[in-house]
């Protein structure tokens, strides 16, 4: 059963081809699937496992390690409030509490209408504009309680759709110039690795662990 749409599947295969070891494409593929569904569905994890040659449990193991990969459904907007030290000094705790009461949930939860998920997060690398908030991993600037309420209203009204794409979207422009992988070089490297392995196998008289 295919879960990834045809165009994504094609991109997935292209991504796998970028790496000498297919499993190196695991995380990029997780993002690709998350871009399609907004979160990482089990069906997607199974398919990724197949594409990169690991087990579904290993995909899940990796996915659950990273905060930006969601293995449970999330809202249309994932609102992240940084509570790391600089933001904490700038009132992040108060903002988070305000956000919780404004949305009627605890950090980590999703509103019943499925619009917002609130996250408490570590440093978002925008420490000079505290407390820092991101929506779907896009900076929306330092927020006060009032501006936060406005932000929620704007998001609900769809006013920010230009700056805040659907959850899961990583980049809207695919890079075609500058630092791009040289496919021929990767293919050559893969070939060289396979040859080296074969040569080593031919040389190795006895694998370890033997002994009479």
């Amino acid at each position, binding site marked *: 059963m295919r879960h990834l749409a045809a165009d994504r599947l094609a991109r997935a295969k292209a991504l796998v081809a970028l790496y000498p070891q297919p499993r190196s494409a695991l995380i990029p593929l997780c993002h690709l699937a998350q871009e399609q569904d907004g979160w990482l569905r*089990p069906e997607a994890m199974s398919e990724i496992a197949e594409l990169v040659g690991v*087990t*579904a*449990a290993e995909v899940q*193991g990796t996915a*659950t390690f990273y905060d930006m990969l969601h293995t449970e459904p999330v809202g249309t907007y994932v609102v992240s409030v940084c509570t790391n030290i600089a933001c904490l000094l700038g009132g992040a705790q108060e903002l988070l509490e305000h956000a919780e009461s404004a949305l009627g949930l605890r950090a980590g939860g999703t509103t019943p209408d499925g619009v917002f998920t609130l996250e408490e997060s570590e440093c978002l690398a925008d420490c000079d504009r505290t407390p820092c908030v991101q929506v779907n991993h896009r900076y929306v600037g330092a927020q006060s309680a009032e501006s936060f309420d406005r932000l929620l209203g704007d998001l609900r009204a769809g006013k920010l759709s230009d700056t805040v794409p659907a959850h899961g979207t990583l980049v809207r422009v695919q890079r075609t110039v500058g630092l791009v992988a040289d496919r021929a070089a990767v293919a050559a490297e893969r070939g060289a690795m396979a040859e080296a392995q074969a040569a080593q196998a031919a040389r190795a008289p006895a694998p370890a662990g033997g002994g009479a």
Partner: protein
Amino acid sequence: MSAKPGEMLIAAAERAGTYIPRFCYHPRMEPVGMCRMCLVEVDSPRGATLQPACFIAVAEGMVVDTTSAKVKKAQDGVLEFLLANHPLDCPVCDKGGECPLQDQTLAYGPGESRFIEEKRHFEKPIAISDLVLLDRERCIQCARCTRFASEVAGEAQIDFAGRGEQVEVSTFPTEPFSSYFSGNTVQICPVGALTATPYRFTARPWDLDQVESTCTACSVGCRVAVQSSSNRLTRLLGIDSDPVNHGWLCDKGRFAFESVNGDEVDAGPLPPALADAMVDVAPATAAQVVGLGASRGQFLGEAHETGLFEHGRLIEPQIRVEGELVSVGWGEALAVAAAGLQGARHAGGASAVAMIGGARLTNESAYAWAKLAKGIIGTDSVDAQLGDGLPADLALGLPRATIDDACAAPVLITLAGDLREELPVLFLRLREAIVGGSRLIEIAPAPTALSGLAAATLPIRPGDAPLVARALVGDEAAVGALSSHPQGSALATGSLAAARAVLSARSEGDGVVIVVGRPSYAESGDVVAEAARVLAGALPKATFLPALRRGNVFGALDMGLAPGLLPGRVSLEAGREWFAGAWGSVPATTGLDTAGILSSMAGSSDGDAVTALILLGSDPLSDFPDRALALQALSAGHFIVAVTGHPSESVDNHADVVLPSAVAHERPGTTTNIEGRVSRLGHKLTAPGFAWPDWMIAAELAGALGADLGVSSANDLADELHLTAPAYAGLTQSVLHSDVAHDGILVPIILGAARRADVEPIDPVALPGVEAVERQGAPPRVGMAGGDGSIDIRMASLVDAPPLLSGPGPAGNASAHVPPADSYALRLVSGRRLYDAGSSVTGSPSLTPLVPTLVARANPYDLDRLGATTGDRVRLRSARGEMVLEAEAAPGVPRGTVAVDFNVPAGSDGPANAVSSLIDSRQLVTDVRMESV
């Protein structure tokens, strides 16, 4: 102190006698440095630093302190940290009493915790497979289980999920931890986080009693610690035998002990009267006794005597009276058996008596039965294989490899079924070797668990193996024939060229080990034998592992339980004089194999008719790949004696006399594994009811026949065996009990090769449970080296003894008679599954639910032609019979074939081995028509 190159500090220190505490380190897996329990102080230019001993290799001139104050503080800290979130529910934890966390906390811990906060909580336990439960609160994240799954078993169905203190071992929601090796994770878990359902809450380790033994559920012969309580087996643990199993067991070997206990699955509630009577022995009320599912077996003994429950074992001699089996005493049963056999012999001569089975016996018992059949009764129609093996002279005559040889060989060729299904721990060993660089050429009719690792896979249809073997070794005519062969396209995709390239530098076969078994039971063994002979002829320096799988089949064949053979790997011809001297007489002519015996009984062959049959722990109706013939033979009204521990269709419906025998763990003796390694079996239990060891039944039956087997104990047999069986010369009891035999002894013994194995004390953290029990007063066998361990083997050959079988024998041309494939028919392939309808699985309630559903697997192309797809029902029709199964599209199954598992029932009614109804053992291959229903 010296170390091997690249050796980790923890291992080198241990060899030198310094034990460094550890949790995550396991000597059979890659180090990960997860737990930090092994921190030691290592001198460096910047002063002494704490470093994990499991993760740094020994270097020249290294100075290490393992007991400094700093190290002690680190150990305290690590343990305090591990215990911060540990539930400390030791009183109700199965690991309590043999737990590395308990033991090392006591030995190295701070003794007190400063942690007063709330601990982490998880739902406990959760089932991660049918056999394994996980208690996440107890887990210390050592990654032993996950490393085992990915590194050793090669199926990472469990992995860590989450991060930080929320890390947990986890399966994927739709994929349970269904590995055949899951029990190993339970064994090596250093805490009670993983438990196995068959043992959970059944015992406390200090109440268990232990002997060391060998698993005989298949012919790999893994070393095991067999533990019991109150004459009931409670569990088996793997012991690390370096040449064999590296401490691992498969789940069948580990859990099939339940069939020895023989409990019924659903015994139902006890009637009050009986339950009251049982309150004496139970600490509880009758209701509680019933509620105690796991320990109820302890009370069953009494219930059996009142006849309330049917025991899962045969425990009393029985004879058939007016169609029904009724219990009688041994004397009467033996007299009836002797009269029946004697009658047949008087009427039709010695060859009217035949014997099928013997692979479940110890070597000593097999020898006793061989002596009874061949020396006393005088028949050579004796076969320990049930048409599912290889010609015995081939299996014993091929130059044999050891498992270590196979793992060290640069090139492996497999011409066998799926080794993970048939010989699971051999699969683990070979897999490790292939991942480590050995190159595998696989010749197989269907994909196997090794296919993904093969350097080249040569798909074959039944009947083609000899042709493919010829092409592989460079016979140009065969290469040509293959190009026009229907299978040619698959081979021409380069796999043949790739395989030949792998072999190219080894034209003599040096460094090549060939594993040869039965790729399909719906194809005659003669076809595989021909292919094996082709390979043996073309690669004279190659060695072989014959992949016969029944428990002690190699011991049985070595003891002469095959037509044309005598004990000690000699042929009837070569050994005639020698054994006539030892036994008085031997059969005049070569007898029949199982197929021949059954045909004769069914009246479908000329020559002397077999009219009396001894079933030696065998069930031809399920084991023999031609049910129609077996049924005809057993129903023909001939006299049948069954010597067996378990009921089966053949026994229940057809035996005239049932002689109950002791089974594994109920008698001492020796067993011979796939390599020809003889190792000792532990005697842990008293056999239930009136069951006797097999050798004793042979001796008593000889007496009832008016003869004398000349032995009155298993020791007598062992003493006779090494003096008469040439391949076993020198294998005296003192050798077998000495340190040189710690890992078993390869026969024939090569003089001077007997050296003491490196016996190191067992590491209680690598194998929790084995030593902990040992400490409770069980015989100190495991890992204990006594004396200087050397032993003088004076007599490894017998003067004037006949020569051993050697060489593969003449090539044969069975394949020339394989009928051409007809384009409307599919050739039937039938391989084995680990969990099948054999008595060890059906008698083990934990394993029975794991028997797979029978399906017809075919290439999607062949299914398309019928307009069928996965899930549709199809009818398979052969000249022998027909059956309806669900179809499954399997791209790996070559076109023109259909794969149906052997010895798996098609539903709850009907025969245990459904597919054998389609197979005609007189044909070389079985063709079937597939139709949609």
